[in-house]
């Protein structure tokens, strides 16, 4: 990575333009705004302590993402280990499930009707059902366009592990969307059949 040209940016000048981005990421990871603020404060403290190691101060976004993600991982480490004991239902396919259950029999856009059931707050809630490492991978890839290689660098894991997280995360997300719709009675059918 190249050194920044000219006088190095101060901590405050470096961090300030990325506050909204970091907060948005924290909200998606934590689900609740209070938890997100707490995580953001923790990340900013860590970033301050490690600021001397940041070489490219003109482009700190990926570095800040790594700092915030690392703070998040420290909070959810126990939950992450649950991955060893939890099945994510590899065979579940939401597209096929919706077609089979047909919760909108008079619609010719049944899959989009299903997604239209969810408002933003409900999607944030559904994301909380994903194992933390899957949540990080899915959010960084789908929302912020990070590649698997970049997510690997951010998370300190090999690309193969991240690809597996993305695959399993997507499967878990599909299942969580369906189960949320059933358990919150957003659709009339499917109870007891997940």
């Amino acid at each position: 990575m190249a050194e920044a040209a000219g006088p190095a940016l101060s901590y405050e000048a470096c961090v300030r333009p990325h506050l909204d981005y970091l907060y948005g990421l924290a909200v998606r990871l934590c689900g609740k705004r209070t938890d997100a603020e707490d995580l953001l404060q923790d990340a900013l403290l860590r970033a301050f302590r490690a600021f001397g190691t940041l070489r490219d101060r003109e482009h700190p976004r990926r570095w800040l993402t790594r700092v915030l993600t690392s703070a998040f991982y420290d909070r959810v480490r126990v939950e992450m280990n649950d991955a060893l004991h939890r099945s994510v239902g590899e065979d579940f396919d939401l597209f096929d499930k919706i077609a089979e259950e047909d919760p909108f029999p008079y619609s010719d856009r049944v899959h989009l009707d299903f997604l239209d059931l969810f408002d933003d707050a409900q999607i944030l809630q559904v994301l909380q059902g994903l194992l933390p490492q899957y949540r990080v991978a899915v959010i960084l890839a789908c929302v912020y366009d990070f590649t698997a290689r970049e997510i690997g660098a951010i998370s300190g894991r090999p690309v193969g592990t991240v690809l597996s997280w993305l695959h399993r995360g997507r499967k878990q997300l599909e299942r969580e969307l369906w189960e949320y719709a059933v358990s919150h009675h957003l659709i009339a059918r499917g109870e007891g059949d997940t």
Partner: protein
Amino acid sequence: MISCREAVARLWAYLDRNLERLQEEELEEHLGLCRHCCGELEFARHIRALLRRSGEAAALPGETRARIEALIRELGGQR
């Protein structure tokens, strides 16, 4: 040609730009012939759009911003 099961397993990696060239070509060949998997691809795009939209309103609220900005100012002042 790859199976529907294999094609569907690759869709999100395709949208994430994480497939190798050959895997991508095999998938595109499949998509050119399979209406079901094209439907799956469109559906995957819509789910991802939903995820993107979900946190867009999460700009820093005024009071939180004031607290966070005070924190970075205070920290910055220590350098």
